[in-house]
């Protein structure tokens, strides 16, 4: 039951500094760091101590709620530091990489005879489970629940996001192994979406339901695809996983090794030679960004894309789920008559003396300025233009703000993740923090309803 998904509502924000399709091996990072901030809602319980020698794939900590869920080291080496924040909360676990990488052997896995439980336990103990996320709540999947379907989006439509057609080349075997294993965990289908007219290796997978998607961003967001294919109802769970993480799962199943390698797009308007790097989860981004060259002294490094990524320092680390590093100029400057002069160098979905509608193919050099101050919700109907889900975004956000759980549920909160509100946040004239509002709402629901 394959489907063509055509999205009309949305906005393609075209930015300068798209990564050229060349893969360079990044300089090996000295230090790698696993950041619990990537695992929303997880309380880490340390296993590895400072000074202990570990292999790649050996657990560093586990989830306090689900002891079986291990989080493993991307490299072999020595744990050199556990960074702690307020109330001794762990904010980073640093590993000094050894020269010769050695891997923990999780043993070969017999896919054809494996039961669902066996797959589940294997993924949990090997550290691959955190790659699987769930809706509702957009958190790491609860292994006790069985999803009605699994969704994989092979179309990255966000600005400057790594191109899956390119980075997945040659990974057919790993991807096939991973989807076969995941298929055992659901009673429903494994839905895989690729961009229409793309040449994506995901199209050749067996045992999946393939969809082609077209239209502006957020057509590639897995949330958009879920809502068009099989929306989440109350009481239901779906799982989502990104294709690059499937490769790691597949490699584990085939070789027994946790191979944290990943191909990362380094782009953005301040990058001199935007291109792709082969590196590992948790690597220092400095190993890539200075090689690509930086054309500014006032810039922001984002692990992830400009709409949903996390701001990191230039000496920061690649996030657990990210395969894009974006560098854009900071916009911490004033602009004379910024509120009323005609604007040609910024993107807008109005024509209020903003002229991006004249040049739909122009690539913009956007900075981090908010272009205005925070206000109450005033304009209406603007979010709907870039929001393809069949719900009322502003009403849902207001329900989150006044913490009305019944209304949040009725308006579709189970279906959404913060990333679905990245574009409404972008176009918001009131400069409201949409993703934060939704994240807080989801956390409240998770706490109260579970």
């Amino acid at each position, binding site marked *: 039951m394959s489907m063509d998904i055509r999205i009309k509502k949305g906005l393609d*924000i075209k930015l300068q500094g798209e990564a050229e399709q060349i893969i360079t091996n990044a300089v090996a990072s000295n230090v790698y760091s696993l950041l619990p901030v990537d695992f929303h809602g997880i309380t880490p319980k340390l296993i590895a101590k400072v000074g202990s020698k570990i292999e790649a794939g050996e657990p560093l900590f586990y989830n306090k709620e689900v002891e079986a869920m291990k989080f493993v080291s991307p490299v072999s080496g020595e744990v050199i530091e556990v960074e702690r924040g307020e109330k001794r909360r762990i904010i980073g676990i640093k590993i000094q990489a050894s020269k010769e990488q050695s891997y923990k052997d999780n043993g070969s896995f017999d896919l054809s005879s494996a039961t669902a439980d066996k797959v589940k336990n294997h993924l949990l103990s090997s550290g691959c489970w955190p790659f699987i996320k769930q809706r509702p709540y957009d958190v790491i999947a609860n292994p006790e629940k069985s999803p009605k379907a699994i969704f994989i989006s092979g179309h990255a439509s966000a*600005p400057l996001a790594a191109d899956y057609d390119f980075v997945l080349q040659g990974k057919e075997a790993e991807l096939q192994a991973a989807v076969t294993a995941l298929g055992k965990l659901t009673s429903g289908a494994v839905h895989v979406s690729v961009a229409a007219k793309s040449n994506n290796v995901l199209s050749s997978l067996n045992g999946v339901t393939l969809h082609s998607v077209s239209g502006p961003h957020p057509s590639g967001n897995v949330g958009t695809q879920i809502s068009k294919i099989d*929306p989440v*109802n*109350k009481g239901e769970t779906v799982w989502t996983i990104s294709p690059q993480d499937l490769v790691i799962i597949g490699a584990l199943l085939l070789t027994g090794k946790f191979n944290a390698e990943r191909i990362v797009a380094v782009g953005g308007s301040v990058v001199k030679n935007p291109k792709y790097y082969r590196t590992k989860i948790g690597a220092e981004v400095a190993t890539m960004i200075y090689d690509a060259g930086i054309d500014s002294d006032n810039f922001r490094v984002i692990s992830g894309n*400009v*709409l*949903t990524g996390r701001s990191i320092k230039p000496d920061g680390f690649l996030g657990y789920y990210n395969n894009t590093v974006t560098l*854009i100029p*900071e*916009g*911490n400057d*004033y*602009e*004379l*008559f*910024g*509120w*009323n002069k005609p604007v040609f160098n*910024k*993107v807008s*979905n*109005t*024509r*209020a*003396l903003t002229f*991006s509608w004249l040049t739909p193919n122009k690539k913009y050099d956007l900075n*981090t*300025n*908010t*272009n*205005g*101050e925070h*206000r*109450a*919700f*005033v*304009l*209406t*109907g603007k979010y*709907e233009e870039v929001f393809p889900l*069949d*719900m*009322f975004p502003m*009403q849902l956000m207001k329900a989150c703000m006044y913490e009305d759980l019944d209304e949040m549920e*009725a*308006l*579709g909160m189970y279906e959404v993740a*913060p990333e679905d509100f*990245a*574009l409404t*946040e*972008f*176009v918001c*004239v*009131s*400069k409201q*923090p*949409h993703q*934060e509002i939704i994240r807080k709402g989801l956390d409240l629901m998770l706490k109260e309803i579970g």
Partner: protein
Amino acid sequence: MKNIKYMALKNKLHDLKEKYRGTKMAPLFNGFHTFLYSPNETTHSGSHIRGADDLKRTMNTVIMALVPCLIFGMFNAGYQHHLAVGEINSVSGGFFSPEFWNLPNLSVGAWKVLPLVLVSYVVGLGIEFLFAIKNGHEIEEGYLVTGMLVPLIVPIDIPLWMLTVAVIFGVVLGKEVFGGTGMNILNPALLIRAFLFFAYPTWMSGDKVWVTGAVERTNEIAAGSSADAISGETILGSLAQGQEVAYSVWDMFYGFIPGSVGETSTLLILVGALFLIFAKIGSWRIMLSAALGALAMGLIFNFVVDSEWISEGSKFYSLMNTKFWQHLLIGGFAFGAVYMATDPVTASQTNKGKWIYGFLIGFISILIRVFNPAYPEGVMLAILLMNVFAPTIDHYVVQGNVKKRLKRLKAKTA
């Protein structure tokens, strides 16, 4: 050289902003500062980049759409005055008639209209500033548009103190008590007009208030002057009293008729509407459906007359007999539908709701217009009424979406 000066101003203002940070002065200073420079704020959570538009730009777009009406209003105030005192002949050459577009008309009109604009902004923004300082929030832009709307929807000779009282009432009770911009239920500009209308009805209707100088002249005559009385009745006023209308349809369309300052020129309102729709700021759904609602009601009344269900002697006859499409040209309907009904805060907030809301505004406007001869302008009351009902309309539209979701769940579990 110039560049250095420019940098110096920017830096000086930045230093001042830091100095006032956290003090009572901060909102006031920032209010002025952000008019000169858009702030140096960067994104902290969520999307790292943001669209070009902010609320100031949005409001500024609406004001730009109002400027033609304001300028026309000034010329028209002078023109109506000079026409009434018999100094000039009525227009003869279409929209660009020299009898209309001349300096004497402008100077008389500007002398009367600019004080209205000034009072509206000074009083209204003053209250906004006070509340911003008191509540410690930034000055919000809501009044920028309201302040421009108010002088355009009052009679030209309204005493400035009345306007002051009405603006205070409208801004404080219409907006600030609800929490400021974005939180109000009723359109503040219309609330100000409604206050004037119910508090000072003699200054808001009749045949003396629409032409500048008419009230003054009446008082002089009462005091024994031998000058001729001057008067100017609006078209709706004439129709309500069953009098002949002395204006051609083109006069109505161009706006060479007595009425509130900025509401008369349907042509320029149409231009403003197209600009707002093109800029994607004004809701075309509301504008279009309001026009459709008005036409529908007009057709119903025409049908009543054609079916001879009502006799010529009836006091409703002449308004009912007005051709249905002419309702769009006369009175404040066009102005209300384009600039007031579309206020996003007080209108329906869902796209489907906007169709219903707009249609009912048009429909009820003409209903009130025909059946309320004491005050034949219905659009103000129709919009205020629908402001109250907009949340209800939205509730049912949103419930439709909620039901769809529940049905989906039921289909699954059944």
